[in-house]
């Protein structure tokens, strides 16, 4: 059963189309990953789904409610964790949670119990009375997630939940996401971290330049990627014409990456190493290492989006700063 259904959703800012007629659905109880480079339209899509932006065209249905006309009903059953922690600096962690709970009409005794429960669950019980501004980045992130789930939402929107925080906090947040999902919360997650999506998500949607170009189960994507055979040769410095010669001698392969001292080849058919070793010997190029690479979700991402992982890593670094 689909809990989110998006049809031909479009958002324009003047002449610029940020989201261009996208359609996808999210099943109840799944973790849906929304992947794409910076500026692809991920946050604009989340903003339209949560009521912070009005669609220029298209339809949104969330848990049966019309996302445009019944947004206040939608907001009652969703939780939102934005890409930046946006709680109140002057208020303590506990007071922030109590305040957020009251916005959803939770009674005093219920919200107090729930806030304390969450502080425990997120390992923040000892710092609950400290002002939010005194929290570390990881603690702020955890409290922001706690605030997003204080009212037991059926759907949780998580925008880049682990960007810019320490490894331990990120690991803890991933574990919490899994626990939440196991308890039945549907999770809509955007992330820059492909490995995070691989670990957490059941299905992925890829968005590039405002268009959803693929929606698929993670398992299916992995199987699709692994149909390809990849081998990397580490060599002594080689010339650019080596690539041309390789393709001429082995017409069934493609050159995936070449750095001058390593070359990565790919083929739909199994790759035998010996003919290549002979080729390199004939060319007088010494090979120090030859390894079979198991394609990962990163490779799938590159293949689908046409965006290099290097670019994505630079974006990650930028976000972290």
């Amino acid at each position, binding site marked *: 059963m689909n809990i989110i259904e998006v049809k031909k959703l479009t958002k324009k*800012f003047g002449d610029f189309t940020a989201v261009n007629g996208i359609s996808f659905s999210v099943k109840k109880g799944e973790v849906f990953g929304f992947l794409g480079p910076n500026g692809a339209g991920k946050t604009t899509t989340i903003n339209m789904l949560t009521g912070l932006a009005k669609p220029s065209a298209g339809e949104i249905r969330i848990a049966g409610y019309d996302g445009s006309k019944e947004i206040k009903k939608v*907001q009652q059953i969703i939780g939102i964790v934005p890409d930046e922690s946006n709680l109140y600096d002057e208020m303590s962690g506990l007071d922030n949670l109590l305040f957020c709970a009251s916005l959803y*009409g939770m009674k005093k005794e219920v919200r107090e119990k729930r806030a304390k429960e969450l502080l425990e669950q997120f390992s923040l019980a000892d710092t609950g009375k400290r002002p939010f501004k005194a929290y570390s980045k990881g603690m702020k992130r955890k409290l922001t997630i706690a605030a997003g789930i204080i009212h037991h939402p059926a759907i949780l929107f998580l925008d880049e939940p682990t960007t810019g925080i320490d490894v331990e906090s990120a690991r803890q947040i991933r574990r919490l996401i899994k626990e939440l999902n196991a308890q039945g919360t549907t999770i809509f997650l955007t992330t820059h971290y492909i490995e995070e999506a691989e670990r957490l998500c059941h299905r992925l949607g890829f968005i590039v330049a405002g268009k959803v170009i693929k929606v698929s189960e993670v398992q299916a994507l992995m199987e699709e990627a692994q149909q390809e055979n990849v081998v990397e040769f580490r060599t002594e410095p080689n010339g650019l014409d080596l690539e041309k010669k390789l393709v001429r001698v082995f017409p069934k392969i493609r050159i995936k990456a070449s750095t001058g001292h390593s070359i990565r080849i790919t083929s739909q058919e199994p790759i035998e190493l010996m003919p290549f070793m002979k080729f390199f010997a004939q060319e007088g190029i010494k090979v120090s290492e030859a390894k079979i690479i198991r394609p990962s979700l990163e490779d799938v991402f590159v293949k689908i989006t046409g965006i290099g992982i290097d670019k994505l890593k630079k974006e990650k670094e930028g976000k972290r700063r």
Partner: protein
Amino acid sequence: MNKLMAFWSILTKDMKNYYLKPPNISWGIIFPISWTLMFFIKSDSTVDLRQILPGVMALSILFGTTSMLAVTITFERKSRSFERLLLAPISLNLLMLAKTTGAIFFGIINAFIPLLFASLMIDLSGINWLTTFLGVVLIAVTSTFLGLLIAVSVSEVFEAQTFSNFFRFPMMFLCGLFIPLEKLPVFLQPLSYVLPLTYGADLLKFAINSAGSIRLWVSLLVLIGYALVLFLISTHNIKRKWIY
């Protein structure tokens, strides 16, 4: 009930986080004292405290509410905590009423501080307290909604301050507090009658010194009208600019 709880939480959060902070409490005390002293200096210590009371009260409200609301909302917008409120399951009108009620209370308290000081020094008998309170509330409401309009029009805290002054200073000199309306240059007089503070100040003059020049019901209606128009324009602009 749920909506009322959200309203109350936003109001108490704002009072605690912004309006009841020591610097703002001291502002509420120092500001009216400064205005009173200014009038004393200006008039060679022969000033009639009761005559200047409506002006000091009106200006205390105007400066207190417009600054505070414009700054707090702009600040929350910058830190993105305002988004949290926009994403809560409460209507925009209720949210903005909750956000502005704190500033309205702050303005009302600011108005009664000079009154309290004056009561220690002069005889305040003969004041129409009901009209005074009504005048104070209406000035507080219109000034707060003016602050809201300013907050919606700017994106930086310093812009909020600058833009507030753009409205406040002309209003201060044209509302009849320093110079009686009939003594203003003829070409400026119509402008005075466009300003909400003119009606608020006249209401207080009438209530405190029985000296107003505009009919009471006209002032009341104009102030209520201003409050409604400013609130509607502000919420319309929020829908257009912040829920983009």
